[in-house]
């Protein structure tokens, strides 16, 4: 499965997204490299995108995001992306994870949503191998990401 193919640093990365939560627009973007000769797909990068904003940019950061989701309110203020908080909804206390975006908007993730996202996460990686992702994770710059996003139609206004 993991025979050596050239560590190609071009822009032929195909991005496919898994929608982890539709209401809150949380997506898992997976960058695939396609080996045409062997007709195989290799995962080269995994990031989290919320609304039109990148939250993480490499595998290590994305794994932190996933673990913070899994911990839910067992996490604390040392968390990097998701912060446990409690709100009162209809005079009852409710726990949630808060995700702050760059423009100040706060997204609240409930416990069930977090669990569903973890399940989807597992499904999204089920048939793929991680060895190539860890060995040759694609180091991308702002420019290469922009070109890849444009090539895969992410910059197109869908409405």
């Amino acid at each position, binding site marked *: 499965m993991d025979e050596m193919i050239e560590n190609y640093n071009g822009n032929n990365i195909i991005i496919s997204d898994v929608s982890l939560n539709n209401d809150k627009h949380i997506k898992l973007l997976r960058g695939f490299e396609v080996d045409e000769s062997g007709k195989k797909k290799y995962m080269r990068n995994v990031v989290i995108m919320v609304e039109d904003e990148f939250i993480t940019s490499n595998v290590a950061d994305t794994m932190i995001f996933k673990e913070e989701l899994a911990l839910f309110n067992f996490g604390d203020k040392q968390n990097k992306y998701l912060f446990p908080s409690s709100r009162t909804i209809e005079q009852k206390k409710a726990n949630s994870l808060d995700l702050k975006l760059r423009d100040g908007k706060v997204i609240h993730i409930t416990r069930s949503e977090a669990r569903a996202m973890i399940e989807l996460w597992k499904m999204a990686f089920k048939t793929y191998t991680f060895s190539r992702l860890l060995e040759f994770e694609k180091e991308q710059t*702002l420019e290469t*990401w*922009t070109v890849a*996003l444009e090539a895969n139609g992410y910059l*197109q206004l869908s409405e």
Partner: protein
Amino acid sequence: MYIAIIVILIFALIIYYTSKIGVDDEQEIEPENCIQDRVPQPETSKEVVLYFNTDMVKFAFYHVHVLLNYQSRKFYKKVVVDKLFLDEPFHTTFIQLLQIYDHTESWIKSQKTKEIKLKIRTKNGSFQEGTSFKVYSISEIIFDFLGNILEHFDNNRYSKNDQKNVILAALAWKLDLVMELKYLCEKDLNCIERRECLGNKILKHHEKNHDVFQILRMLEARHEKLLFVFEAYEKALKWQREYPYVQKDKEQHKNIHLENLVTKNSKKLISLDAF
């Protein structure tokens, strides 16, 4: 006896009438002949082909190499060489405007783009932020815009002076899109004042009461007679190619210095064949 006299009379009458009819016919024919004599029939014109030795006829043109883009070269040929708009100060101002749009790397944001905010961890571990979206290239828009205006001139009749003034005014009107010229004017100007300031700097060879300035004012007021210019611009935007672009926090533009543009003295005598 009587019969013989009657017969003779009848003969005499017949001869008299026949002779009279003949005279009438002749009288009718005469004026026709006169008219034919007076008005000569048009002669079938022969085609006259004149051969000019175009190697010998030379005009003062700018060398094409001062322009970088093939499109600006095409428009220089289309406007100055084909239409022979050689008079000053139109010629110099036109090529200076072409040079500005040739050198510019400015862009405007596409109408059909989504913005994605990126945050990338670099090799050092530090973060780099940026926003990616799709943009139109200003030089491509302007060259399409100019093409549309010239197409309108081909289909409708405009005097030479009007054509020249509209071309200059339309190009000067869009100068505020060129970020490389931003340094020329003060920062706290609104868009109309900035356009006026840039127009004055570029059209410095024209007198203040020249028609170009009048057309610029008409463009600002969106005059009815110049609606085709707005249509040409919108048409150019509609079919424009989009490019991916990432905007980082700090953006710097190279300034285009007006002193580096061509001047009247850099013209050379070039034959029409060279284009």
